[in-house]
Protein backbone atom coordinates (compact mmCIF):
# COMPACT_ATOMS: atom_id res chain seq x y z
CA UNK A 1 0.00 0.00 0.00
CA UNK A 2 1.37 3.41 -0.98
CA UNK A 3 2.39 5.40 2.07
CA UNK A 4 0.71 8.74 2.58
CA UNK A 5 2.85 11.47 4.07
CA UNK A 6 1.96 12.63 7.54
CA UNK A 7 0.06 15.88 7.71
CA UNK A 8 0.22 18.78 10.15
CA UNK A 9 -2.80 20.55 11.58
CA UNK A 10 -2.01 23.65 9.52
CA UNK A 11 -1.90 21.79 6.20
CA UNK A 12 -4.48 20.60 3.70
CA UNK A 13 -4.20 17.96 0.99
CA UNK A 14 -6.47 17.04 -1.90
CA UNK A 15 -6.85 13.26 -1.77
CA UNK A 16 -6.05 11.33 -4.94
CA UNK A 17 -4.48 14.38 -6.57
CA UNK A 18 -1.01 12.95 -6.91
CA UNK A 19 -2.49 10.01 -8.80
CA UNK A 20 -1.34 11.91 -11.92
CA UNK A 21 2.28 11.62 -10.79
CA UNK A 22 1.63 7.95 -10.14
CA UNK A 23 0.42 7.52 -13.74
CA UNK A 24 3.54 9.24 -15.09
CA UNK A 25 5.65 6.99 -12.86
CA UNK A 26 3.77 3.91 -14.09
CA UNK A 27 4.35 5.04 -17.69
CA UNK A 28 8.10 5.30 -17.04
CA UNK A 29 8.12 1.91 -15.35
CA UNK A 30 6.30 0.51 -18.40
CA UNK A 31 8.85 2.01 -20.84
CA UNK A 32 11.83 0.77 -18.81
CA UNK A 33 10.26 -2.70 -18.48
CA UNK A 34 9.74 -2.83 -22.26
CA UNK A 35 13.40 -1.91 -22.91
CA UNK A 36 14.63 -4.52 -20.42
CA UNK A 37 12.34 -7.10 -22.04
CA UNK A 38 13.68 -6.32 -25.52
CA UNK A 39 17.29 -6.59 -24.34
CA UNK A 40 16.53 -9.93 -22.64
CA UNK A 41 14.76 -11.19 -25.76
CA UNK A 42 17.75 -10.17 -27.87
CA UNK A 43 20.09 -12.01 -25.52
CA UNK A 44 17.96 -15.18 -25.65
CA UNK A 45 17.75 -15.08 -29.46
CA UNK A 46 21.50 -14.60 -29.69
CA UNK A 47 22.02 -17.53 -27.35
CA UNK A 48 19.64 -19.77 -29.35
CA UNK A 49 21.28 -18.73 -32.59
CA UNK A 50 24.75 -19.55 -31.30
CA UNK A 51 23.48 -22.89 -29.88
CA UNK A 52 21.99 -23.73 -33.22
CA UNK A 53 25.37 -23.07 -34.79
CA UNK A 54 27.02 -25.40 -32.28
CA UNK A 55 24.38 -28.09 -32.99
CA UNK A 56 25.40 -27.95 -36.57
CA UNK A 57 28.86 -28.89 -35.37
CA UNK A 58 27.27 -32.17 -34.08
CA UNK A 59 27.24 -31.03 -30.45
CA UNK A 60 24.05 -31.49 -28.37
CA UNK A 61 23.26 -28.98 -25.68
CA UNK A 62 20.33 -29.30 -23.34
CA UNK A 63 19.05 -26.10 -21.75
CA UNK A 64 16.75 -26.01 -18.81
CA UNK A 65 15.60 -22.67 -17.47
CA UNK A 66 13.68 -22.66 -14.29
CA UNK A 67 12.32 -19.56 -12.74
CA UNK A 68 10.75 -19.52 -9.34
CA UNK A 69 9.61 -16.44 -7.53
CA UNK A 70 8.40 -16.57 -4.00
CA UNK A 71 6.67 -13.68 -2.35
CA UNK A 72 6.12 -13.95 1.34
CA UNK A 73 3.62 -11.58 2.82
CA UNK A 74 4.08 -11.02 6.52
CA UNK A 75 0.85 -10.35 8.37
CA UNK A 76 0.34 -9.89 12.06
CA UNK A 77 -3.21 -10.69 13.08
CA UNK A 78 -4.66 -8.79 16.00
CA UNK A 79 -4.74 -10.53 19.32
CA UNK A 80 -8.19 -9.23 20.15
CA UNK A 81 -11.41 -9.82 18.27
CA UNK A 82 -12.83 -7.35 15.73
CA UNK A 83 -15.68 -5.61 17.47
CA UNK A 84 -18.56 -3.74 15.85
CA UNK A 85 -18.13 -0.06 16.64
CA UNK A 86 -21.77 0.23 17.68
CA UNK A 87 -21.21 -2.18 20.57
CA UNK A 88 -20.80 -0.86 24.12
CA UNK A 89 -17.25 -0.72 25.44
CA UNK A 90 -15.84 -3.75 27.25
CA UNK A 91 -12.56 -5.51 27.97
CA UNK A 92 -11.77 -8.75 26.22
CA UNK A 93 -9.89 -11.06 28.58
CA UNK A 94 -7.57 -13.74 27.19
CA UNK A 95 -5.40 -16.15 29.13
CA UNK A 96 -2.33 -17.66 27.51
CA UNK A 97 1.16 -18.91 28.32
CA UNK A 98 4.40 -17.47 26.97
CA UNK A 99 7.69 -19.14 27.88
CA UNK A 100 5.88 -21.07 30.63
CA UNK A 101 4.65 -17.79 32.14
CA UNK A 102 0.87 -17.72 32.47
CA UNK A 103 -0.34 -14.30 31.40
CA UNK A 104 -3.69 -12.57 31.16
CA UNK A 105 -4.27 -10.09 28.35
CA UNK A 106 -6.84 -7.33 28.76
CA UNK A 107 -7.89 -5.83 25.42
CA UNK A 108 -10.18 -2.79 25.64
CA UNK A 109 -12.77 -2.33 22.89
CA UNK A 110 -14.71 0.84 22.05
CA UNK A 111 -13.08 2.64 24.95
CA UNK A 112 -10.71 5.55 25.48
CA UNK A 113 -7.72 5.87 27.77
CA UNK A 114 -7.47 8.55 30.46
CA UNK A 115 -5.59 8.88 33.74
CA UNK A 116 -7.00 9.42 37.20
CA UNK A 117 -5.37 10.49 40.47
CA UNK A 118 -6.73 9.63 43.90
CA UNK A 119 -9.44 7.24 44.98
CA UNK A 120 -11.21 5.64 42.07
CA UNK A 121 -14.99 5.25 41.98
CA UNK A 122 -15.77 1.55 41.98
CA UNK A 123 -19.39 2.31 41.12
CA UNK A 124 -18.47 4.13 37.88
CA UNK A 125 -20.02 1.83 35.29
CA UNK A 126 -18.28 3.63 32.42
CA UNK A 127 -14.93 2.16 33.53
CA UNK A 128 -14.09 -1.05 31.71
CA UNK A 129 -10.48 -1.34 32.88
CA UNK A 130 -8.30 0.35 35.46
CA UNK A 131 -4.87 -0.33 36.92
CA UNK A 132 -2.33 1.74 38.76
CA UNK A 133 -0.15 3.76 36.42
CA UNK A 134 2.81 5.70 37.87
CA UNK A 135 4.69 4.75 41.01
CA UNK A 136 4.36 6.81 44.17
CA UNK A 137 7.38 7.65 46.33
CA UNK A 138 7.19 5.90 49.67
CA UNK A 139 8.94 8.77 51.52
CA UNK A 140 6.89 11.79 50.42
CA UNK A 141 3.92 10.21 48.65
CA UNK A 142 4.57 12.11 45.41
CA UNK A 143 4.14 10.74 41.89
CA UNK A 144 7.37 9.35 40.40
CA UNK A 145 8.24 10.75 36.97
CA UNK A 146 6.56 13.31 34.74
CA UNK A 147 2.79 13.18 34.90
CA UNK A 148 0.07 15.15 33.10
CA UNK A 149 -3.57 14.86 34.08
CA UNK A 150 -6.03 16.30 31.55
CA UNK A 151 -3.50 18.93 30.46
CA UNK A 152 -2.35 19.77 33.98
CA UNK A 153 1.25 18.79 34.81
CA UNK A 154 1.40 17.24 38.28
CA UNK A 155 5.00 15.98 38.29
CA UNK A 156 8.13 16.62 36.23
CA UNK A 157 10.73 14.01 37.22
CA UNK A 158 12.71 11.74 34.88
CA UNK A 159 13.54 8.69 36.94
CA UNK A 160 12.00 6.27 34.43
CA UNK A 161 12.44 6.45 30.69
CA UNK A 162 9.28 4.65 29.62
CA UNK A 163 6.25 6.78 28.90
CA UNK A 164 2.63 6.46 27.88
CA UNK A 165 0.62 9.35 26.45
CA UNK A 166 -3.03 9.63 25.51
CA UNK A 167 -3.70 12.78 23.51
CA UNK A 168 -6.85 13.40 21.47
CA UNK A 169 -7.61 9.69 21.70
CA UNK A 170 -4.23 8.68 20.28
CA UNK A 171 -2.14 6.47 22.53
CA UNK A 172 1.65 6.44 22.32
CA UNK A 173 3.85 4.08 24.28
CA UNK A 174 7.57 4.66 24.04
CA UNK A 175 10.95 5.16 25.59
CA UNK A 176 12.78 8.50 25.63
CA UNK A 177 14.68 10.82 27.95
CA UNK A 178 12.64 13.75 26.77
CA UNK A 179 9.38 13.36 24.95
CA UNK A 180 7.60 16.27 23.24
CA UNK A 181 4.40 14.43 24.12
CA UNK A 182 4.69 15.78 27.68
CA UNK A 183 4.30 19.36 26.37
CA UNK A 184 1.71 18.26 23.83
CA UNK A 185 -0.34 16.64 26.59
CA UNK A 186 -0.30 19.91 28.55
CA UNK A 187 -1.39 21.84 25.46
CA UNK A 188 -4.15 19.47 24.37
CA UNK A 189 -5.71 18.45 27.68
CA UNK A 190 -4.04 15.09 27.30
CA UNK A 191 -2.52 12.54 29.65
CA UNK A 192 1.08 11.44 30.18
CA UNK A 193 2.90 9.29 32.70
CA UNK A 194 6.26 7.60 33.10
CA UNK A 195 7.14 4.06 34.13
CA UNK A 196 9.85 1.47 33.65
CA UNK A 197 10.45 0.78 29.94
CA UNK A 198 10.09 -2.92 29.14
CA UNK A 199 10.23 -3.20 25.35
CA UNK A 200 11.32 -0.67 22.75
CA UNK A 201 10.84 -1.38 19.03
CA UNK A 202 10.63 -5.10 19.79
CA UNK A 203 13.83 -5.14 21.84
CA UNK A 204 13.91 -6.12 25.51
CA UNK A 205 15.04 -3.45 27.98
CA UNK A 206 16.53 -4.62 31.25
CA UNK A 207 15.62 -2.83 34.47
CA UNK A 208 17.40 -2.56 37.79
CA UNK A 209 14.94 -4.22 40.22
CA UNK A 210 15.74 -7.95 40.25
CA UNK A 211 12.99 -9.29 42.50
CA UNK A 212 9.95 -11.25 41.43
CA UNK A 213 6.36 -10.02 41.60
CA UNK A 214 3.10 -10.02 39.68
CA UNK A 215 3.98 -7.88 36.67
CA UNK A 216 1.72 -5.64 34.60
CA UNK A 217 2.30 -3.60 31.46
CA UNK A 218 0.55 -1.51 28.84
CA UNK A 219 1.61 -2.59 25.38
CA UNK A 220 1.49 -1.57 21.74
CA UNK A 221 1.47 -4.45 19.27
CA UNK A 222 1.25 -3.14 15.70
CA UNK A 223 -1.10 -0.39 16.88
CA UNK A 224 -3.25 -2.65 19.04
CA UNK A 225 -3.13 -1.38 22.62
CA UNK A 226 -3.72 -3.74 25.52
CA UNK A 227 -2.61 -4.58 29.03
CA UNK A 228 -0.81 -7.71 30.15
CA UNK A 229 -0.60 -9.21 33.65
CA UNK A 230 1.39 -12.23 34.79
CA UNK A 231 -0.52 -14.72 36.89
CA UNK A 232 2.67 -15.80 38.63
CA UNK A 233 5.47 -13.79 40.21
CA UNK A 234 8.12 -13.00 37.59
CA UNK A 235 11.33 -11.00 37.24
CA UNK A 236 11.35 -7.88 35.07
CA UNK A 237 13.63 -9.65 32.59
CA UNK A 238 11.43 -12.73 32.12
CA UNK A 239 8.31 -10.56 31.87
CA UNK A 240 9.89 -8.31 29.24
CA UNK A 241 11.11 -11.37 27.30
CA UNK A 242 7.56 -12.77 27.29
CA UNK A 243 6.30 -9.46 25.88
CA UNK A 244 8.98 -9.52 23.17
CA UNK A 245 7.96 -13.09 22.31
CA UNK A 246 4.36 -11.89 22.04
CA UNK A 247 5.61 -9.60 19.21
CA UNK A 248 4.95 -6.48 21.24
CA UNK A 249 6.68 -3.43 19.79
CA UNK A 250 6.63 -1.11 22.78
CA UNK A 251 5.65 -1.69 26.38
CA UNK A 252 5.94 0.16 29.65
CA UNK A 253 5.31 -1.12 33.12
CA UNK A 254 2.19 -0.59 35.21
CA UNK A 255 2.33 -0.90 38.98
CA UNK A 256 2.50 -4.62 39.71
CA UNK A 257 2.38 -6.75 42.82
CA UNK A 258 -0.79 -6.21 44.90
CA UNK A 259 -1.76 -2.90 43.27
CA UNK A 260 -5.50 -2.99 42.83
CA UNK A 261 -7.50 -2.72 39.62
CA UNK A 262 -10.22 -4.39 37.60
CA UNK A 263 -11.60 -5.09 34.15
CA UNK A 264 -15.18 -5.50 32.98
CA UNK A 265 -15.75 -8.04 30.24
CA UNK A 266 -18.44 -8.34 27.56
CA UNK A 267 -20.86 -10.10 29.92
CA UNK A 268 -20.43 -7.42 32.60
CA UNK A 269 -18.29 -9.68 34.78
CA UNK A 270 -15.73 -7.77 36.86
CA UNK A 271 -12.19 -9.22 36.88
CA UNK A 272 -10.45 -7.80 39.94
CA UNK A 273 -6.73 -8.06 40.59
CA UNK A 274 -4.43 -6.97 43.40
CA UNK A 275 -5.55 -6.18 46.91
CA UNK A 276 -7.94 -3.29 47.41
CA UNK A 277 -7.25 -3.06 51.14
CA UNK A 278 -3.47 -3.32 51.00
CA UNK A 279 -2.04 -1.04 53.71
CA UNK A 280 0.71 0.40 51.51
CA UNK A 281 -1.70 1.43 48.73
CA UNK A 282 -4.16 2.92 51.25
CA UNK A 283 -1.35 5.05 52.70
CA UNK A 284 -0.54 6.45 49.27
CA UNK A 285 -4.19 6.93 48.28
CA UNK A 286 -3.93 10.68 47.66
CA UNK A 287 -1.41 10.52 44.81
CA UNK A 288 -2.18 7.06 43.56
CA UNK A 289 -2.64 7.24 39.79
CA UNK A 290 -4.58 4.95 37.49
CA UNK A 291 -4.93 4.31 33.81
CA UNK A 292 -8.66 4.28 33.20
CA UNK A 293 -10.31 2.94 30.08
CA UNK A 294 -13.82 4.31 29.77
CA UNK A 295 -16.58 3.33 27.37
CA UNK A 296 -16.86 5.68 24.40
Amino acid at each position, binding site marked *: *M*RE*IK*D*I*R*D*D*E*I*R*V*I*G*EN*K*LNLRVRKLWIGIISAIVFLIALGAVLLFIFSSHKREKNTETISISIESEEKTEVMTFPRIGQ*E*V*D*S*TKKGFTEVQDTTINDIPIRIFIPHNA*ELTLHVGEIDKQDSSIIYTAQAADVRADNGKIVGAFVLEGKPLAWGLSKKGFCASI*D*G*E*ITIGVADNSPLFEKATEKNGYFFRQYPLVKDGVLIDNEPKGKAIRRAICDRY*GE*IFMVETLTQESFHDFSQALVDLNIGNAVYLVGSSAYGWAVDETGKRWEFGDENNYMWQKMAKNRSYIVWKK*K
Partner: protein
Amino acid sequence: MKKSLIISTSIDLVRIAPEQIIYISSDGNYSTIVQTDSEMRVLSYQLGQIEKMISQQLGMDGNIFIRIGKSLIINRSYIYYINVPKQKLILSDAATFNHTVTASKEALKQLKELLEKEVK
Protein backbone atom coordinates in the same frame (compact mmCIF):
# COMPACT_ATOMS: atom_id res chain seq x y z
CA MET B 1 -20.92 2.57 -12.76
CA LYS B 2 -19.98 5.16 -10.19
CA LYS B 3 -17.28 4.13 -7.78
CA SER B 4 -18.21 3.47 -4.16
CA LEU B 5 -15.94 3.50 -1.17
CA ILE B 6 -15.75 0.14 0.57
CA ILE B 7 -14.50 -0.01 4.13
CA SER B 8 -14.23 -3.53 5.40
CA THR B 9 -13.22 -5.15 8.66
CA SER B 10 -13.18 -8.87 9.44
CA ILE B 11 -16.79 -8.73 10.61
CA ASP B 12 -18.54 -5.96 8.74
CA LEU B 13 -18.39 -3.85 5.61
CA VAL B 14 -19.54 -0.35 4.72
CA ARG B 15 -20.18 0.48 1.05
CA ILE B 16 -20.92 4.13 0.50
CA ALA B 17 -21.06 6.49 -2.45
CA PRO B 18 -18.57 9.36 -2.06
CA GLU B 19 -21.30 11.99 -2.43
CA GLN B 20 -23.07 10.54 0.59
CA ILE B 21 -20.13 11.45 2.82
CA ILE B 22 -20.16 14.98 4.26
CA TYR B 23 -17.00 14.61 6.30
CA ILE B 24 -14.91 12.10 8.22
CA SER B 25 -13.46 13.08 11.56
CA SER B 26 -10.72 11.44 13.56
CA ASP B 27 -11.19 10.12 17.04
CA GLY B 28 -7.73 8.75 17.78
CA ASN B 29 -7.66 5.17 16.56
CA TYR B 30 -11.23 5.48 15.28
CA SER B 31 -12.87 7.60 12.59
CA THR B 32 -16.44 8.82 12.30
CA ILE B 33 -18.18 9.16 8.94
CA VAL B 34 -20.94 11.77 8.90
CA GLN B 35 -23.36 11.00 6.09
CA THR B 36 -25.86 13.14 4.17
CA ASP B 37 -28.74 11.07 5.59
CA SER B 38 -27.74 12.23 9.11
CA GLU B 39 -26.27 8.84 9.97
CA MET B 40 -22.94 8.75 11.78
CA ARG B 41 -20.79 5.66 11.56
CA VAL B 42 -17.78 4.95 13.74
CA LEU B 43 -15.07 2.89 12.04
CA SER B 44 -12.15 1.15 13.67
CA TYR B 45 -9.64 2.76 11.31
CA GLN B 46 -7.40 5.77 11.80
CA LEU B 47 -8.06 8.74 9.54
CA GLY B 48 -4.80 8.17 7.63
CA GLN B 49 -5.92 4.63 6.79
CA ILE B 50 -9.27 5.93 5.51
CA GLU B 51 -7.39 8.48 3.40
CA LYS B 52 -5.33 5.65 1.86
CA MET B 53 -8.52 3.70 1.09
CA ILE B 54 -10.08 6.73 -0.63
CA SER B 55 -6.92 7.30 -2.64
CA GLN B 56 -6.61 3.65 -3.67
CA GLN B 57 -10.25 2.88 -4.37
CA LEU B 58 -11.43 6.12 -5.92
CA GLY B 59 -8.21 7.21 -7.63
CA MET B 60 -8.68 10.61 -9.27
CA ASP B 61 -12.33 10.61 -8.18
CA GLY B 62 -11.01 10.78 -4.64
CA ASN B 63 -10.14 14.43 -5.20
CA ILE B 64 -13.62 15.46 -4.06
CA PHE B 65 -12.18 14.79 -0.61
CA ILE B 66 -9.74 17.11 1.08
CA ARG B 67 -7.72 16.21 4.13
CA ILE B 68 -7.62 19.14 6.55
CA GLY B 69 -5.04 18.75 9.29
CA LYS B 70 -4.74 15.62 11.36
CA SER B 71 -8.39 15.15 12.23
CA LEU B 72 -10.62 15.91 9.28
CA ILE B 73 -11.44 14.79 5.74
CA ILE B 74 -14.18 16.82 4.07
CA ASN B 75 -16.20 16.45 0.90
CA ARG B 76 -15.40 19.61 -1.04
CA SER B 77 -18.82 19.50 -2.74
CA TYR B 78 -20.41 20.56 0.52
CA ILE B 79 -18.16 23.47 1.45
CA TYR B 80 -20.62 26.27 2.05
CA TYR B 81 -18.90 28.80 4.29
CA ILE B 82 -15.34 29.42 5.49
CA ASN B 83 -14.43 31.94 8.18
CA VAL B 84 -10.67 31.94 8.72
CA PRO B 85 -10.39 34.10 11.90
CA LYS B 86 -13.23 32.24 13.59
CA GLN B 87 -11.74 28.91 12.42
CA LYS B 88 -15.18 27.97 11.19
CA LEU B 89 -16.11 25.76 8.24
CA ILE B 90 -19.73 25.01 7.41
CA LEU B 91 -20.54 22.00 5.26
CA SER B 92 -24.02 22.13 3.84
CA ASP B 93 -26.14 21.26 0.82
CA ALA B 94 -28.14 24.40 1.61
CA ALA B 95 -31.26 22.28 2.02
CA THR B 96 -31.18 19.27 4.29
CA PHE B 97 -28.04 19.45 6.41
CA ASN B 98 -25.68 21.97 7.91
CA HIS B 99 -22.56 20.89 9.83
CA THR B 100 -20.06 23.23 11.43
CA VAL B 101 -16.52 21.95 11.91
CA THR B 102 -13.37 23.66 13.10
CA ALA B 103 -9.86 23.64 11.69
CA SER B 104 -6.69 25.66 12.13
CA LYS B 105 -6.59 29.17 10.66
CA GLU B 106 -3.70 28.27 8.36
CA ALA B 107 -5.50 25.19 7.02
CA LEU B 108 -8.71 27.15 6.38
CA LYS B 109 -6.71 29.90 4.68
CA GLN B 110 -5.18 27.30 2.36
CA LEU B 111 -8.61 25.79 1.69
CA LYS B 112 -10.02 29.21 0.85
CA GLU B 113 -7.13 29.89 -1.54
CA LEU B 114 -7.58 26.50 -3.18
CA LEU B 115 -11.24 27.19 -3.90
CA GLU B 116 -10.46 30.70 -5.11
CA LYS B 117 -7.86 29.32 -7.53
CA GLU B 118 -10.36 26.85 -8.93
CA VAL B 119 -12.77 29.57 -10.09
CA LYS B 120 -10.05 31.64 -11.78
